[in-house]
């Protein structure tokens, strides 16, 4: 990443990028150190990889919802495609004797490619719609992917790979079932690690933030801010929306593969509408277009349900209340004014507002 310094000030993109990378790297170092001292509870330890996966999901969805401005409710579908693709690839390579890291990398790449292709194909019809209609159709496609996963049976034996829509795969004795329809994947070798998650989060941040600060990012945001004006300066709106959607889907597939290989059993039903909404909540709570906000929101909201376990039956109620309070406190105009006033006091005279126009000053 190149730092761009303008008039002694960092450009806003560079500043936000540094914050995002900083948060992730510091969090990784702190958790690793605490872990080596044995100060991380086992419940949190189990959540480290899912947190990384959800950060990837949130940041990638932010590319569609925040940067491209289209509400997508089917993100869990791409996650699911990536997860099961990852499980299949990793399962097929199990006997090859490759190290876990290489298998995970292969699984993640294949998951990303499959999800990316799906994103591209689904994006072509879906992105012709706008607003609520687009949201509803993405929701439908998310459910379609989930339901397809529900009837897919896959297995591997010495004859190679078998893929059917019924359980009768005709596997040899030594063969292994990889996907088992509605029962999902069972006996998955757990090869996802926190370090791998950390690296994938950094890759996601690198891709999303660099796109934001490039010609493509400007075009995507221009199409979001004003479609008619974007067309009038020669931008192909459909093309840039599709670009954002495809990249986002591919990243979601990556996150899905990481997520899938963290559990020994994974049901297709896990990636339902609720998961899509959960990811959307991360994005909205973190702020549309705000990457580091997504990171924090995904982390906090993944830990929170566990942390609230002491409330037992009232756990989800408490979760909802916390969610509402955070929304109010981050977006209330009064609190915004207060923080802005505070900022102006701290950085006196550095506030960036154009001087009122003087008469005749053109």
């Amino acid at each position: 990443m190149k730092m761009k310094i303008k008039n002694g000030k960092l450009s806003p993109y560079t500043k936000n990028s540094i914050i995002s990378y900083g948060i992730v790297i510091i969090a990784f170092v702190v958790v690793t150190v605490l872990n080596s001292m044995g100060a991380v509870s086992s419940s949190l330890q189990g959540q480290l990889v899912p947190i990384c996966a959800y950060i990837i999901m949130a940041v990638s969805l932010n590319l569609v919802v925040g940067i491209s401005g289209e509400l997508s409710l089917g993100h869990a579908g791409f996650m699911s495609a990536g997860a099961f693709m990852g499980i299949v690839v990793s399962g097929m390579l199990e006997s090859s004797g490759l190290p876990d890291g290489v298998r995970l990398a292969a699984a993640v790449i294949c998951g990303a490619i499959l999800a990316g292709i799906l994103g591209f194909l689904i994006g072509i019809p879906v992105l012709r719609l706008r607003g609520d209609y687009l949201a509803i159709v993405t929701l439908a496609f998310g459910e379609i992917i989930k339901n397809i996963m529900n009837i897919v049976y896959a297995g591997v034996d010495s004859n190679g790979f078998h893929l059917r829509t019924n359980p009768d795969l005709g596997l040899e004795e030594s063969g292994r079932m990889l996907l088992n329809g509605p029962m999902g994947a069972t006996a998955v070798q757990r090869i996802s690690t926190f370090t791998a998650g950390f690296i994938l989060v950094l890759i996601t941040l690198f891709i999303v933030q660099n796109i934001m600060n490039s010609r493509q990012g400007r075009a995507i945001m221009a199409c979001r801010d004003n479609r008619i004006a974007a067309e009038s300066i020669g931008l192909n709106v459909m093309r840039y929306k599709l670009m954002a959607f495809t990249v986002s889907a591919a990243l979601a597939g990556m996150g899905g593969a990481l997520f899938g290989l963290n559990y020994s059993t994974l049901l297709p039903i896990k990636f339902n509408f609720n998961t899509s909404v959960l990811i959307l909540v991360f994005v909205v709570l973190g702020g549309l277009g705000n990457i580091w906000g997504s990171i924090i929101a995904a982390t906090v909201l993944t830990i929170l349900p566990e942390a609230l376990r002491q409330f037992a039956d009232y756990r989800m109620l408490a979760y909802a209340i916390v969610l509402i309070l955070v929304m109010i406190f981050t977006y209330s105009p009064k609190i915004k004014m207060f923080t802005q006033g505070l900022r102006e006091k701290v950085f006196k005279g550095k506030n960036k507002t154009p001087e009122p126009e003087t008469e005749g000053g053109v």
Partner: protein
Amino acid sequence: MSIKMKNDEVIQNTVYDVYENYDESKSTVDEIILPERDKDKTPILEIKGLGIDFGGLTAVDEFTLSIGRTEIAGIIGPNGAGKTTIFNLLTKVYQPTRGTFLFDGVDTAGMTTTQISKMGIARTFQNIRLFDKLTVEENVKAAMHEEVNYGLFSGIFHGPKYRRQEKAAHEKALELLSIFDMQDMADYQASSLPYGAQRRLEIVRALATDPKVLLLDEPAAGMNPSETAELMNNIRKIRDTFGIAIILIEHDMSLVMNVCEGIAVLNFGRIIAKGNPEEIQNNPAVIEAYLGKKKEAK
């Protein structure tokens, strides 16, 4: 509907009555009028009988006009005469029901907004349409296609091509912004600019597409007289620096009469007069379109 149509017809007829009485032989409506210096070159725009219907309403009809390569032309007319519709037809926001126009000798029938923009027609909007959340500089850079054309791969990895092109784009953006003395505002968010500056930014953004024709839709709306005077100089300056044709829609008559070389007057979607500012000012059809018909006292 039928009642309304009848009224329109009645009003139109009275307008044409006056026009016909005015001396048929002097009619300039179908003539091609180009400035002296552009006469030996093909016009940049040759609009031929352009027309569009919205349902039963004919918004523009038989619109024929040629624009010289470095001409500053004006389109004026009362509210609802179809001026902005013509800009929308020229930028293919609407596809015409009848007629077509040649751009630089090429027939544009069936083209899309994006294609038209790439060919070299840029526009501004009556109600400002900026990319609000982008900075001023990004608004300008978003419109550059020649200078910045690296692929998605370069966009992700920020390689040498990215750095070279972004640097060139940054310099060109500042240069374009300096036309309106706006280079100091480059880092401001577009929506935070004062109204006048937003209008000027729209013009700069349009210029960043390297157009051959610039369409300005009420560039002086909401500006005070001194700002309008400044704008007038800048319109000429843009024409001289870039050597492009400019068509403007404007209600501010001082601006139109001072800056335009050729003017077309539109009423009810039809051209009722064409000519230089002087001719237009003395044309009874124009006077009637704006002020109404003189009562026949005699």
